């Protein structure tokens, strides 16, 4: 089967799974709402279909819970998951390194420091529904990316090794500053730790309305570079010989992936493993061709994050667990299982 048909097949299957999981996730929670009612409420929110849906028989309270509380949270988690997995695929491809994740060049520690500064020192309502914490986290993430990128640029070329090393070095320093602030402002420590661990408890429609279009546009633009990413994984020089403008493509993808990761992390805090493991799982399922791997990983990242966040808010109901704990505790064994299984198959 040719790549195009295969891509379409995987994407359709993954989108159906995502759709079904959104309905299930929306119906689960402290307030019990039936799948049928959930489906009707969700349908009533979709433009075009809403005229044919009658929600008169459903209690108003349920409609509010789903459309004002659960739905923004679900959609935000899906988009953050998509962003992290997409950025993960790009970084792993660019660095030809399976250990790369969206935070590899220091986006997360930059965001953490920014969020900490926002939480501790800045008082204010933020901008158009976006909290100061989020804004400062975004500034921290972007600032770090910018710094690391410029440090590693030598005569117009970006050195991967320098990029990784300066990312690690700068991350260490930024984390140290974050810890220092936590020590001198002990009263805010819990807030900072909770933000850093990541989650979607404070999700609102206004967050989603900002995040979704930015992430969508960046992910789609990056998608046009996936043939190049395949070829770049043969080595920079070989890629030039095959007609790829290696330096320019690498810079473009680096900037796009860093922006995607920065926007995601500023909305959700640092959620580990999704951006690292989702691409690996999908590589085992659909193969390494980025033209298939990337769109499939993006959707799968949404699925993984949605499932993790749903578990995070329902396992110990009514208490919540930080979603990062779920992604690590549930995601890692699953990944290790796939790793061992594929080893037996191939070696």
């Amino acid at each position, binding site marked *: 089967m*040719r790549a*195009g048909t295969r891509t379409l097949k995987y994407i359709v299957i993954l989108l159906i799974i995502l759709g079904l999981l959104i309905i299930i996730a929306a119906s689960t929670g402290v307030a019990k709402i039936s799948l049928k009612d959930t489906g009707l409420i969700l349908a009533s929110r979709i433009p075009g279909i809403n005229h044919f849906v009658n929600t008169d028989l459903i209690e108003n309270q349920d409609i509010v819970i789903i459309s004002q509380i659960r739905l923004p949270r679900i959609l935000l988690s899906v988009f953050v998951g998509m962003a992290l997995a997409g950025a993960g695929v790009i970084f792993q491809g660019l660095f*030809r390194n399976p250990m790369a994740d969206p935070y590899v060049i220091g986006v997360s520690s930059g965001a953490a420091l920014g969020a900490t500064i926002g939480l501790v020192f800045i008082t204010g309502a933020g901008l158009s529904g976006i909290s100061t914490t989020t804004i400062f986290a975004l500034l921290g993430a972007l600032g770090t990316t910018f710094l690391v990128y410029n440090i590693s640029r030598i005569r117009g070329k970006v050195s991967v090794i320098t990029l990784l090393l300066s990312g690690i070095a700068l991350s260490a320093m930024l984390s140290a500053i974050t810890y220092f602030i936590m020590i001198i402002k002990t009263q805010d420590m819990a807030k900072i730790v909770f933000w850093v661990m990541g989650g979607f408890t404070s999700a609102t429609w206004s967050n989603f309305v900002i995040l979704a279009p930015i992430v969508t546009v960046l992910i789609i633009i990056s998608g046009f570079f996936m043939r190049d990413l395949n070829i770049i994984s043969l080595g920079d*020089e070989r890629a030039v*010989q095959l*007609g790829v403008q290696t330096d320019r493509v690498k810079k473009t993808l680096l900037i796009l992936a860093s922006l995607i990761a920065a926007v995601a992390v500023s909305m959700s805090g640092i959620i580990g493993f999704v951006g690292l493991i989702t691409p690996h799982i999908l590589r085992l399922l659909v193969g390494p061709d980025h033209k298939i791997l990337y769109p499939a990983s993006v959707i799968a990242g949404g699925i993984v994050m949605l499932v993790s966040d749903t578990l995070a808010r329902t396992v110990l109901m009514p208490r919540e667990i930080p979603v990062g704990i779920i992604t690590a505790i549930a995601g890692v064994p699953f990944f290790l299982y796939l790793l061992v299984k594929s080893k037996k198959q*191939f070696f």
Partner: protein
Amino acid sequence: MSVNGNMLSLKNLNFSYGKKKILDDISFNAEKGDFISILGPNGAGKSTLVNLISSILKDYRGQIEVGGRNLKGLSSKDIAKMIAVVPQYTNPGFSFTVAEMVIMGRNPYISRFGAERKEDFNAADEAMEKARVLPFANRKFSELSGGEKQRVIIAQALAQDSPILFLDEPTSHLDINFQIEFMNLFSNLNKKENKTIIGIFQDINLAIQSSKKIMLLKEGRIFNSGSVEDTINRENIRSVFGSDVFIGRNPVTGSLYVSPVFNTTVERDSIIQASNKYSKVHVIGGGGAASQVISLLHSSGYIISCGVVNTLDTDLDTARMLGIPYVAEAPFSPISQDSQNRNLEFIKSSDAVILPAVEFGPGNFSNLVSVNKAVGLRKRVIIIDKENIEKRDHTGGKARELYGKIIKDGAIPVDSANEVLMRLQE
């Protein structure tokens, strides 16, 4: 893309890394259908040349023209449509299948917002067919052997459908059967599809079998360029590579071959001093049969002469190389009376005459007559490998008959060159 005439031309190309000059005023033209090999030692600038032409390196002075157009005015994709490179080896970061690897060669033809079309898949299939990788199109590249991997990379380059194929030591880490297979493949592409092939090779012999032109590169400069016959000689190889070689001719294909000369340092005490009874030895040559015994006797300290041999004969090359006197005849001509007389002069002044396992035909039958005279002159005559004279006789029995007489009259038959040494020391 089809272009006639000059496919690739370099004009006064200069390149430096910092202050170190790597390429110094390189100019050359490759025309359509050329097969040019670039030879030179490590550090001569060969890889830099590949990197400049495939536009991996850009800060050069001078001009590179591809298909008559300035390289600097061409996009990466345009260059890849004109020149496909076969690198030494490729190590993909992920385990792509063979088909996925080969279709990457179509990248120059696919726009950023487009997808692979039917013609791209057809071109990839055709390339896989030529490189004989179609049967394992769906296998993982990482699971293939070194030679199979290189076939895939060749298919990837062929999928680029470019008029120029640039080989960057494509066989240097492969075993001999893959080297031969690939050189045959490149030769066929050159002959049947008129592809212009420019190659960098470590193995001079491999290069000269298929090449039409040779470019010798030394310390960033073109030392010599031209046909194989004009460029591959002892002096050039020694100047460029700094090593002593022996240049002979393959008796089957007639093409040149180069083989290194290893210093056969002989133990001092094993050298027979000229005080020996049989210190001057004449060796009958022909078809390379004498080379072994000549070099053995030479390294043991004997004074040797050789004759009569044809000009293109390996035995003559051996004699020339060791600087021993010889009698030569024009190539593919029968031995003249004059040559035979000069040969007899050598025999008369020698103490012993050696007859190696030479093939005899009407052209060199007179050599056997000379050996017969040597027996008559009471010279010590030693004959190597008498058993197989029947196979080596192409004169309809005449040679065998005279051979028998020579042995009957007192020539000493032996089995090997080492035994010759023993018989001379008696």
